[in-house]
């Protein structure tokens, strides 16, 4: 260049300081920062990330809630004593409680008193109920140490032998059903998540390729001015990684805001019938740390996927540019 430079200098080309200042502005990126296809890609990535994160959140919620239900139910057993003519209910309840409490693995045994029983029946029989005038079965709640469960078979046999009309329900049937249901729900949720992530990956690939197609002329020009394939790929990869991160972060933040919104709603409406119903089903609507880590992981995976797709697309485009563009000059 020195010779050309000298030539040009000889030809009288002189610079004005104004022109120098003007060109020292920051150069435009080789890949244009924004176009319609790029914006559409960011939007598609944001929506897909949002949906993936919601699916992940729902799976986390169901899994955690099912685990809580299971632990709660497994922590209790119930002794039921049916009333009978001539049965001293108070004595029978006390006896049943004592028998249960005598077993190791039982943390507590307490009688559901007449008032609590009346409250339990209130939704069906109304208020002001005289519980003693009705043949209502009475309950003893046995709290169990879930780590060392008592000998239920022995307790059941002793109760049947000692206390008339007493039956022991260790909730085994419920727990088994619940475990099966929770497993099914989590499996369905995980399958939905896998499908969602696959759809996201494919959408990202198509959106990236679509956005790349509009930049084919840039790749061609770079190629013709002697840019090496890794340089061209790195320009596009950087651009699309940024776009992917922007979209994925927007989707992830959107999902987190929805989680926080639900949490806020459920804590604000605590003790109202709607919230109680929701809490009974889903716990306290809180997505645990694993959920938030999952959201972060999805955002990163999607951004990396976008960059990787771009890299592969650029390289395959470069491979074809020499042979498939008959009008490229």
């Amino acid at each position, binding site marked *: *260049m020195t*010779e*050309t*430079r000298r*030539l*040009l*200098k000889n*030809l009288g*080309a*002189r*610079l004005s300081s104004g*022109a*120098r200042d*003007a*060109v*020292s502005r920051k*150069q*435009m990126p*080789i890949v*244009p920062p924004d176009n319609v296809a790029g914006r559409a890609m960011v939007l598609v990535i944001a929506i897909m990330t949002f949906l993936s994160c919601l699916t992940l959140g729902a799976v986390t919620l169901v899994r955690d809630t099912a685990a809580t239900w299971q632990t709660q139910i497994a922590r209790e057993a119930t002794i039921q004593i049916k009333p009978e003519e001539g049965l001293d209910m108070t004595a029978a309840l006390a006896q049943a409680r004592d028998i249960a409490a005598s077993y190791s693995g039982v943390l507590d045994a307490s009688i559901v008193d007449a008032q609590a029983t009346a409250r339990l029946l209130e939704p069906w029989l109304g208020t002001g109920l005289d519980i003693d005038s009705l043949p209502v079965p009475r309950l003893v709640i046995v709290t169990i140490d879930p780590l060392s469960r008592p000998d239920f078979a022995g307790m059941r046999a002793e109760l049947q032998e000692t206390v008339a009309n007493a039956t022991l329900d260790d909730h085994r049937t419920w727990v088994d059903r619940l475990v099966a249901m929770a497993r099914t729900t989590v499996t369905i949720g995980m399958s939905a998540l896998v499908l969602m992530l696959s759809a996201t990956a494919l959408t990202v690939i198509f959106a990236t390729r679509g956005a790349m197609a509009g930049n084919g*002329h*840039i790749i*061609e*020009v*770079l*190629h*013709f*001015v*002697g*840019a*090496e*394939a890794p*340089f061209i790929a790195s320009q596009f990869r950087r651009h699309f990684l940024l776009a992917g991160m922007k979209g994925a972060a927007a989707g992830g933040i959107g999902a987190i805001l929805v989680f926080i919104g639900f949490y806020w709603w459920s804590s604000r409406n605590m003790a109202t019938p709607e919230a109680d119903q929701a809490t009974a089903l889903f716990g306290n609507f809180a997505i645990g740390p694993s959920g938030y880590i999952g959201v972060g992981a999805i955002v990163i995976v999607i951004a990396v996927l976008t960059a990787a797709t771009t890299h592969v697309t650029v390289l395959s485009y*470069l*491979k074809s*540019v*020499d*042979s498939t*563009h*008959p009008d*490229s*000059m």
Partner: protein
Amino acid sequence: MGPEILRDVSFHLPERSFQFLSGPSGAGKTTLLRLLFMSLKPTRGLITIFGKDRSAITRTELPLLRRNIGVVFQDFRLLDHLTTYENVALPLRVRGREEATYRSDVIELLKWVGLGERMHVLPPILSGGEKQRAAIARALIEQPRILLADEPTGNVDPQLARRLLRLLIELNRLGTAVVIATHDLGLMDQVDARRMVLSGGRLEIYD
């Protein structure tokens, strides 16, 4: 495979040579330039570029060899989102050079081709002639060993065409081999140079 465009074509482009490539439209001028630029592989025959067999040049070597070749495309191939200055500086930028090391060279060249006042303008605003000059400046910026120009004066007035031709001649004197594809007889008459005429897929050379 399409029709055979060039047949039994054999020639040598010496270092520092200057030649016109002419012939009617569709004679294969662009195809021949593409073969020289290595953006097309011959279906048969042998091409040796800078002492290397074209068929043995790998994909990795290609960009490095292309850095010795300046090309002026018929349709300019300027990037619309980059200013004239950035377009002309592009070959230097892709070589990883810092802007400070080439800024003055690019500005000088732009001023010389008459684009000093248009260096911060985007190509869509430029006239056909200005785009042509920007494309020529981009091809010249690294003083290539060979310059291939496809109708480089096709979009400019005769006065500017003469000026651009003088620039190409100066470049040739500094050691760059020049091939100008054109069917502008007026342009060819201005220089006593080798003429390569394509017709019916065959090449005649008039030294």
